[in-house]
C-alpha cells in the first residue's frame, strides 16, 4: 500500500505543472492585459515596459511559464501583482478559514443527507421518500446566496444568535457552513438513496435477518457499509470542490476564503495569485482524492485486493 501512496504523490508533480500551464495559457488568451490593472491611467510606454519587466510579463508564453516553474520548484509562489504580498502568505492567511468552512459544511451535508437518503431508500415510494427527495432538491435548486441571506435575516438580525459576517470565532462559521452544506446535500442524499436501494435488495441482508440481527443493525451496519463506496466518491468530489472555496457563500457572509481570493485575482488578472492559489488547492484536492481511494480499500476489501494484486 505504501508504494501505491508514494506513486500517487509522485503523480502530483505532473498535475501541478499541468495546472500551472493551463492557467498561464488561459490568462495569456484572456482579454485585459495585467499590466493595465497595476499601472495608472497616465502611464507612459516606458513605464509600462518597465512594469512588464518587473512583473515578468515579457517574453513568450513558454518563457514565462518556465520562469514560473523554475521558481515553483524552489517553493516560491511569487508575489501578487496587486498587493505586492507573497502569494504563499496570502493563501495561508485564507486557508484556515476555507478549511473550517469546508469541513463544517461537509459535516452539515452528511448529517442532512445520509439519514435522509436512508429513510428515502428504506421507505421507497412512500410519502417519506417523496418528502426527503423534495427537501434534498430544495438545497440544490435554491440559489445559495438566497438561502444565505434568508438565514442571516433570521438568525443574526432577528434572533441575534450568530454574527452576520466575518470569520472570528466558531459561531461565525455556522451560517455559511449551513448555506454551503445544504447546497451539497441534494447530490449526497440522492446518491445515498440510490446506492442504498441497490444494496437493500442483496441476499446477504436476508442472511443477516435470518441470524436474528435487528432491522436497525441490518440497515445501518450491514447495508450502509456496502453502500458507502458511491457515497464516499461523491463526498470526495464535493469536498475537493468546497476546498476550492465557495465564492457565493464567502461573498454573502464576508468570509475571507480561498474561493474569493481566486475570483478577485482573476478579476484583477493577478496571475501569480491565481496560479499559486489553484496549485495549492490542487495539492489539497489530490491529497483528498488519495485519501478517498485509500478509504475505498478499507471500506471494500475487493478493491483492496485489486490494488495489492
Amino acid at each position, binding site marked *: 500500500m505504501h508504494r501505491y501512496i508514494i506513486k500517487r504523490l509522485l503523480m502530483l508533480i505532473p498535475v501541478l505543472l499541468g495546472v500551472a500551464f493551463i492557467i498561464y495559457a488561459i490568462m495569456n488568451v484572456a482579454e485585459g492585459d495585467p499590466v493595465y490593472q497595476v499601472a495608472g491611467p497616465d502611464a507612459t510606454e516606458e513605464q509600462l515596459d518597465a512594469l512588464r519587466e518587473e512583473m515578468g510579463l515579457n517574453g513568450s508564453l513558454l518563457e514565462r511559464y518556465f520562469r514560473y516553474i523554475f521558481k515553483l520548484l524552489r517553493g516560491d509562489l511569487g508575489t501578487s501583482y496587486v498587493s505586492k504580498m507573497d502569494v504563499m502568505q496570502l493563501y495561508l492567511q485564507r486557508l484556515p478559514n476555507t478549511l473550517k468552512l469546508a469541513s463544517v459544511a461537509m459535516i452539515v451535508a452528511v448529517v442532512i443527507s445520509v439519514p435522509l437518503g436512508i429513510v428515502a431508500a428504506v421507505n421507497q415510494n412512500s410519502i417519506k421518500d417523496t418528502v426527503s427527495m423534495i427537501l434534498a432538491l430544495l438545497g440544490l435548486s435554491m440559489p445559495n446566496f438566497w438561502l444565505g441571506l434568508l438565514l442571516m435575516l433570521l438568525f443574526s438580525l432577528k434572533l441575534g444568535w450568530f454574527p452576520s459576517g466575518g470569520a472570528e470565532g466558531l459561531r461565525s462559521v455556522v451560517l455559511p457552513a449551513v448555506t454551503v452544506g445544504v447546497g451539497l446535500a441534494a447530490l449526497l442524499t440522492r446518491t445515498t438513496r440510490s446506492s442504498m436501494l441497490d444494496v437493500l435488495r*442483496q*441476499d*446477504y441482508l*436476508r*442472511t*443477516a*435477518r*435470518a*441470524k*436474528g*440481527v*435487528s*432491522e436497525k443493525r441490518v440497515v445501518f451496519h*450491514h447495508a450502509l*457499509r*456496502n453502500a458507502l463506496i458511491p457515497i464516499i466518491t461523491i463526498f470526495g468530489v464535493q469536498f475537493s470542490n468546497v476546498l476550492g472555496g465557495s465564492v457565493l457563500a464567502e461573498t454573502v457572509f464576508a468570509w475571507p476564503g480561498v474561493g474569493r481570493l481566486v475570483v478577485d485575482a482573476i478579476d484583477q488578472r493577478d496571475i501569480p495569485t491565481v496560479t499559486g492559489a489553484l496549485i495549492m488547492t490542487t495539492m489539497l484536492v489530490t491529497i483528498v482524492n488519495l485519501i478517498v481511494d485509500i478509504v475505498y480499500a478499507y*471500506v*471494500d*476489501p*475487493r478493491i483492496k*485486493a485489486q490494488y495489492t494484486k
Partner: protein
Amino acid sequence: MDKNEERDILRIENLNVRFETEDGVVHAVNGIDMKLGYRKTLGLVGETGAGKTTTALAMLRLVPNPPGVVECDRLEIDGQDVRGMSASKLEQVRGKEISMIFQDPMTALNPVFTVGEQIAESIEIHEHLSKEKALEKAGDMLELVGIPRQRANEYPHQFSGGMKQRVVIAIALACNPKLLIADEPTTALDVTIQAQVLELMNELKEKYDTSMIMITHDLGIVAEVCDDVAVMYAGRIVEQGSLEEVYGKTMHPYTEGLFNSLPNIKNRQAMLKPIHGLMPDPTNLPEGCAFAPRCNYATEECKKACPALRNVGGTHMVACVRYEKDPNFMIDRRKQNG
C-alpha cells in the same frame, strides 16, 4: 427426551402467502398445514415456483411486506407462537431456535465483513459473549465445517462456492438451533462438493439433535437425508407421508410424474415420461385441482372441486379427487410395484 417426542418442533396450520403487485396478486402459498417432530427431517419437494422457499421464509417471518401478505391460523416453533411475536422477541428466535441456509452461496455472505465476523455475530447476539470469545467460537465452527481456523479473517471473495456454503452452514448452526431450514443448499454446487456438504449436514444434525426441513427438487437427496416427505404443487401440499409411504406407495399423479422424470439406472432403454405443460400462472390459478390441466387421470370432477388432504393409511396423506370418488382407483406406478 420422551416429553419432547409428542410436542412438535414446528406446527403450521392453513398458511397462506400472496404478493400484491401492480401486475396482479400472486398466490404463492395456498393453505399449507405442516407438523415436524423433534430430531426429524422433512423433505419439501416440488418444481421451482411451487412456493417452497416462500413457505420457508414465512416460517421465519422474512417475507418482505409490501408486497408480501402472510396469513395463517397457527405458526408455532418449539411451542412458541411466532405470528404475534414482537420484533425484538422474533430476533431472539431467529438464529437461536430456527435458522436457515440459503440457496446461492455466492450472494449469501456480506462481501465487506470477514467470514469470522459474520459467524461471530450471531453467537454474540444469542449467547451474549464478548467479541473475542465469539470469534474464538467462530473459529471452532469453521473447523467443524472443515475450514482451517486461520481463514477466519479472510473475506468471502477469497472462498470458492463450496467453501462459502460451508461458511453459511457454520453461521446457521453457530448457536445450534433446534430447527434448521435448508433451502436447496447444494443446488449451486457440483456433485462431489454436494455429497460432502450433505454428509456434513447429516453429521451435525445427529451431533446436535437438530430437526431439519430440506427444500429441494432432487428426489435423490430426499431419499438420502429425510425421514418424511411433502410434495408441493402450486402452493399446496398434494401428497405427504413417510419416505416408504410416498416412495413405495405413491398415490398422487404429480408425484408419479416426478418419479417418471428420473432416468432409471437399471432400465437404460426406458423412455423418460416428463410431465407435459407448464406450472400454472400464480396470478390466476385454475379452479379445482391445480394439477388437473397436466394430469393424465383428470376428469371433469377434478376441474370443479379443490381436493383436501385426506389420510390414506398410516401417516400417508394425499389430495386427489379420484380417490375420494373411487376408493380403489390406482395410478400406474402403484400397479407396477403393487
